[in-house]
């Protein structure tokens, strides 16, 4: 019985997607490089008065203009290295490294 319960919990957890967040502040992505498992949703929130964007270098994703307090999310489903920048301030750069999704035990 105990084993079955643990298995149910494990399946439930793996079905839930993971979340993480990156603040945009002082003209920088505050966590410039993060590593997440495939399926993770990343949210960015702009804390500057100036608008910023989260724009993939290959344009595969683009938040468009985020004003002060605006948030934007993107779910990374495929493993790989995703480099991005702010389209208004290209000196602002960030990287998301997506690893294989954690396998259920």
């Amino acid at each position: 019985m105990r084993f079955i319960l643990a298995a149910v919990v494990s399946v439930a957890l793996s079905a839930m997607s993971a979340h993480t967040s990156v603040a945009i502040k002082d003209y920088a992505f505050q966590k410039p490089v993060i590593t997440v498992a495939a399926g993770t949703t990343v949210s960015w929130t702009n804390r500057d008065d100036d608008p910023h964007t989260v724009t993939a270098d290959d344009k595969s994703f683009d938040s468009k203009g985020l004003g002060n307090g605006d948030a934007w999310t993107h779910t990374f489903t495929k493993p790989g290295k995703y480099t991005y920048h702010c389209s208004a301030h290209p000196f602002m750069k960030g990287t998301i490294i997506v690893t294989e999704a954690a396998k259920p035990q």
Partner: protein
Amino acid sequence: MKREEFLECMAWCGTGVVYGLSGAGMVGRALADDAASSMPLPDRTFVQISDTHIGFNGKANQDVIATFSQAIDKINALPKPPEFVIHTGDLTHLSKPDQLDTVKQMLGTIKAGAFYAVPGEHDVINDGGAEFFKTFGHPSGNRWFSFDAAGVHALALSNVVDITKGGILGRDQLEWARTDLAKQRQDTPIVIMAHIPLYAVYPDWGWTTDDQMELMDQLRRFDTVTVLNGHIHQVLSKVDGKITFYTAASTAFPQPKPGTAPHPGPLAVPAGELGKLLGIRTVTVHGGSHTIAVADASLAS
């Protein structure tokens, strides 16, 4: 470029221009003006405004509509309506429909012969500029264009789309400029207008245009070239041979002097100081002599 080198350059480059604060605000004029005596042809004027950022609401200015209204009042109080007004970009803060509508209505109250605009990076941040060009672009639909007015041949350029470091003009625009400029006489005063500075003001903050040198090479054969930019929200000037560069004050908020802060951005100043750092620019083209006088008036003047 290191900050010391930058300051040295600014000091050296400033030798050809009388530039500074006067009782009437910030004024500048080409030294060649002094040689020009009274000419039979009348002076002609146009006005540059920049970086109105309608929709901005932060510590640096909590009422950008009020300061833009003051700028419009200054234009409408000029002794003679300017032949045209050029807005050098960042009309709105986020290109939202209500912001575009507000700035369009306010621009409609300016008394001038014509109105032109070039895009800033804020104007293209959502849709690559589709809505901006639909609302403020040239009737031809072209994203860059030239026109003849106020005794000058003016090029209105776009250097804010798909930027990767500083501003970028791109191959197509540079080729178009080459063809356009080839048709102009050497003694025709040329005015170049674009949002991001067309010289290396401070590359670490993106305050430069990566492919500007090719355009400058096309401009060197002309007797007088005046380059008008926005983006950096402060009045700076530089002389390079017969080409003079002027960046403009914003009507919304100042930004730090190059390299004096960890990053660029809206700069909050003590109450009472804001109006002194915002302004409009009047450009006078002297009849006959073809010399250009640039006068910056702050909103406090």
